[in-house]
């Protein structure tokens, strides 16, 4: 299997006054095409730092990162920006949509930075909104959309440049259980279509929907196991049934 991204002896140190904090202590991970990886761990475990490294948002102190086989460890900021644009789609806990800007224009945003012709960009953006189930809400502004819908717009934005890797940082953290399950269902759907996903979460229930779980503790990778993922659709159906039963009682 081809590696989408690979880290070798990855270290990240932060200088806190006179003390050096080792946020990551030699991480070796390879993530292959088509994998759905959940990164878990308590806060301060280094999982977020690890995510930033994968997303080329931060530069490691030592070690190496290979993205699509290319060494991105020491690239200048401008080249890193191009790499992110081309290979990585980001999904954030707080959605990070541009306010007072339509869903369509939000999705078009990444394509502004690689000079996609306007018409083609609009077509691609519509297709992606269609894919996440928001085909009829392209002109809505974030304030007119529910949290789940906003996250779907963010997912469409992440997909629009057909990146090699989707990085989701606590994507269900700001959503209620049902909406969270719907988003997980969407992720599993994307996974089935062959997308590579990395998901950071501290909820074990959410991590179960991934096909591989990485667990961080104190800057070290303490567990790396593959499992058959739970089905989000089933979980969602079960959740709704339960709620109905509760309501009937």
């Amino acid at each position, binding site marked *: 299997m081809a590696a989408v991204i690979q880290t070798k002896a990855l270290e990240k140190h932060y200088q806190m006054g006179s003390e050096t904090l080792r946020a990551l202590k030699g991480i070796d991970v390879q993530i292959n095409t088509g994998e759905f990886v959940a990164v878990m761990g308590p806060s301060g475990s280094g999982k977020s730092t690890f995510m930033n490294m994968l997303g080329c*948002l*931060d530069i490691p102190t030592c070690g190496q990162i290979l993205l699509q086989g290319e060494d991105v460890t020491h690239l200048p900021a*401008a080249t890193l920006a*191009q790499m992110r644009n081309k290979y990585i789609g*980001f999904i*954030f806990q707080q959605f990070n949509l541009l306010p007072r800007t339509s869903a369509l224009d939000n999705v078009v945003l990444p394509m502004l*930075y690689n000079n996609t012709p306007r018409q083609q960009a609009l077509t691609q953006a519509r297709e992606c909104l269609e894919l996440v189930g928001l085909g009829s809400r392209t002109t809505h502004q974030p304030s007119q959309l529910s949290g789940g819908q906003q996250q779907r717009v963010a997912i469409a934005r992440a997909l629009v440049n057909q990146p090699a890797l989707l990085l989701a940082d606590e994507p269900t953290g700001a959503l209620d259980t049902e909406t969270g399950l719907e988003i997980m269902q969407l992720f599993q759907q994307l996974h089935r279509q062959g997308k590579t996903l990395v998901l950071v979460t501290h909820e074990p229930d959410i991590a179960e929907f991934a096909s591989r779980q990485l667990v961080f503790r104190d800057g070290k990778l303490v567990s790396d196991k593959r499992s058959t993922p739970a089905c989000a659709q089933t979980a969602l159906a079960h959740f709704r049934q339960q709620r109905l039963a509760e309501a009937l009682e």
Partner: protein
Amino acid sequence: MNSITLLQVAWVALKVNLLRSILTMLGIIIGVAAVIIMLALGAGARYDVDQQIKSLGGNVFVVFSRGRFSGGARQSSGSSQGLTELDALAIEQQIPEVNVAAPTLRANGQLIFGNLNWSSDIHGVTNSIYQAQSWTLSEGRTFSDAELASAGRVAVIGETVKRELFGQSDPVGQTVRVNKLPVTIIGVLKGKGQNTQGNDQDDLIFMPLDTVRKRISGMTLSSPKAVRSIIVQVHDERDMASVEQQMDSLLRQRLRATDGQTPFSIRNLAEMIETRSQTLQIFNGLLAAVASVSLLVGGIGIMNIMLVSVTERTREIGLRMAVGAEPKVIMKQFLIEAVLLCGIGGIIGVTLAVITSLSMQYFTGFTAIIDPYVVLMSVGFSCLIGIFFGYYPATKAAKLQPIDALRYE
């Protein structure tokens, strides 16, 4: 990211914060408008002065005969040793650079026509006055040689006099009484309007020199040819200094003037007006300087708001960086926003200045001249202010680290 897209992105960002953008622009709008209005009024005043000089002729001297005092009693101009018609002739003939030298006399007179009366300046002139002061006739004719030689009872009147005494009817051929003397009107001068001091230049009457001298003024003149002043027109403005010198020595010689006693004075009218207008120009320059300070303050306002904007949009900047914006693209975006603010502000300022100057001209009578070069300069300058004051906030935005920016609360 191409420049059109950058412009669109900046435009959208400004539109999203419409009120703030307008308030920010206000500083630039006021600054640009103030500078342009001040410069327009300055140019207008300059134009007025030039027009006045042109109407007098920038190449004109007036030689006055000095009133002399004897025993405390001031004698009339043109008394003994004063200027005479012959001096005018001498100037015209002996100084080759001189085009024409027109001798004049002045008196006040009451004009009566029917039951109307009007008091006006009476100028005793020869026909050379038309050329020397750039007068033309709108009706009638100038004096004939016979009328000039025999103190003929004829007059050419200014437009104001015509209006006051005759209204719409034709004055040529009519007889008016000037200080009881019946005089036939033979022509009407074409109007010149007001000069910059607001004096009516058309309130006058021309009569032959001799007529004024003998029949109107009642002055006891020691010389039968005495005149009050000579208006001298020079061919070429560049010869003014040399002509002044030549006239001075010629007249000294002719009037037998000693060093301590000069019975005449030579005035270059254009120079006098110029000197007077210089004060105005300095004042105007000061106002324009104050106005440009307000432009500077406007620029600082832009910087202030751009800094606030960068802080407020930190997460947006982080997101843009995360999805692929290079630092220099972020920098360009904020710079373009600042330049757009200033550029649009500049254009609105120009429009405002044009409207204000035009209405000032219309309502107050100031002349305002808007130089297209000044307009281009001030819009260009306000764009420069945008670049200058937008640079620091833009650099600040570009230097943000994407992870820090994304986590910014």
